[in-house]
């Protein structure tokens, strides 16, 4: 099967220093892929590079058959690629509903249907829809951020540490919602600190270290791998 996303041999970083050093990530349609690895491995940078937020010095990013290497970020949502940053990922002064509308900014039609679908996937948002997103709890804000990204009906949803700063209970809720989104046919590429929980539900995982691929394989297999466990999953 041709991959939906193919980021190959990426060299990228800030101010002339490469953080990614030849890392490669692919995602097939409908697949759920998780990136794990130690701090500073370049997990978030890899996502940002794919989304045009960090300049790629070398390497190629192909999405849905088109070259999007260093494409301007605002051009990607209409192509079916969505990204939820780790921080500042909602419009805090806008209501939940307005956040969703901004996610569909480039859509000319079907906004009401998209909104209804997002409320269906993330029912907690519906009751809060007239409230400013900044007033919500961490977990609800994360739901708003994911909902915003879903408004364009993306083929691939990229999530940077969706569980950051959440309690274990809320984390479980978020992961459940992500699994439901994936089950609805949206491919997922996710960076996650809670490696065990994330790998357990992923089709495939990457272990990144020093900006390079270290291990790659089906989620449960990576979890079972003793070397991976010893070096990256804290035993």
């Amino acid at each position, binding site marked *: 099967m041709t991959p939906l996303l193919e980021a190959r041999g990426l060299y990228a970083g800030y101010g002339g220093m490469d953080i990614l050093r030849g890392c490669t990530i692919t995602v097939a349609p409908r697949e759920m892929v998780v990136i794990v690895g130690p701090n500073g491995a370049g997990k978030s940078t890899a996502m940002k590079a794919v*989304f045009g*937020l960090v300049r790629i010095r070398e390497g190629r990013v192909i999405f849905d058959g088109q070259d999007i290497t260093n494409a*301007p*970020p*605002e*051009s*990607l*949502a*209409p192509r079916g690629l969505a*990204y939820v*940053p780790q921080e*500042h*990922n*909602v*419009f*805090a*002064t*806008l209501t939940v509903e*307005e956040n969703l*509308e*901004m*996610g569909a*900014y*480039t859509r000319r039609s079907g906004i009401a249907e998209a909104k209804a679908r997002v409320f269906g996937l993330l029912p907690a948002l519906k009751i809060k829809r007239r409230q400013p997103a900044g007033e919500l709890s961490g977990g609800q804000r994360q739901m708003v951020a994911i909902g*915003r990204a879903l408004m*364009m009906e993306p083929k691939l949803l990229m999530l940077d540490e969706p569980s950051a700063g959440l309690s274990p209970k809320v984390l479980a809720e978020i992961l459940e919602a992500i699994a439901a989104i994936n089950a609805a046919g949206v491919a997922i590429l996710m960076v996650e600190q809670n490696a065990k929980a994330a790998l357990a539900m992923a089709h495939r995982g990457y272990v990144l270290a020093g900006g390079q691929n270290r291990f790659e394989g089906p989620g449960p297999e990576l979890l079972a791998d003793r070397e991976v466990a010893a070096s990256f999953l804290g035993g």
Partner: protein
Amino acid sequence: MLEFVNLYLVNGIVLGCVYALGAIGITMIFGILRFGHFAHGDMMTAGAYIALALVWASGMPVLWVLPAAMLLTAALGAGLHWAFYRPLDTGTGSTIVIVIASFGVALMLRSAVQLFFGVDITTYQRGFQTPIWIADTIRILPRHLWIIGLTIALVVALHLFLTRSRLGKAMRAMSDNRALARISGIGTMRVVLAAWAVGGALAAAGGVFLGIDTQLSTQMGWNLLLPMFAAAVLGGIGNPVGAALGALVVGVAEELVTFPWFGEPLLSPAYKSAVSFAILVALLVWRPTGLTRGRVF
């Protein structure tokens, strides 16, 4: 008491309206582009003189040509951004170069107005207006009613635009989180130019209203800068309706310090502008987020 309302309060509200129309643009541009636009006062001057040219050309009363003047100044605002500020926007978040450039643009605008219209003070229309009596007690000039009524209409229209329309919501989204707006696919340049157009149109209205209330001079807009910035900070930077309310407070406060509270004026009218300075300093010391808890950058 009636003297208080008729000679001080009404004047303060009218002044507040003029400030409001400029402060809204200042706060919107700061919210979206993160820089203080020091040419905003001179954009108001330009708007006022564009209206004067339209009055001369058409022979119509100034309020009739106001919509056309607002449109032309909207184009001027967007054009200023395109020609002068956009090339300096490095995207690195450093805006001090643009702030300095806006001082240059302020001088340029003022000089352009002086070149075409001269440096003498002028008016839209000569002659007296007789005040209207409301309930036999409150005396108000028709032009003051127009200024207050139209300002309220413009602020309400702006509020509806920002909360109901797609483009208006995108402006708020960009002011809230520019990076996330890009990620959401919001085309930054179109929204920025639209914000300049809105700021320019309102600035023209403010300039024209000041010209109607008093007179036109090439310094008129520049002199408004301090109270307008005070109003924008008072209302919480990035909050247009807050800026309008802040402007009302500043305008009324400036007039009320000259009221003979204890038999003689509290302050000589010459010191009026010290009021906005005092408000600004007090805010920056005690409440830098503004009264409405806007954002701090």
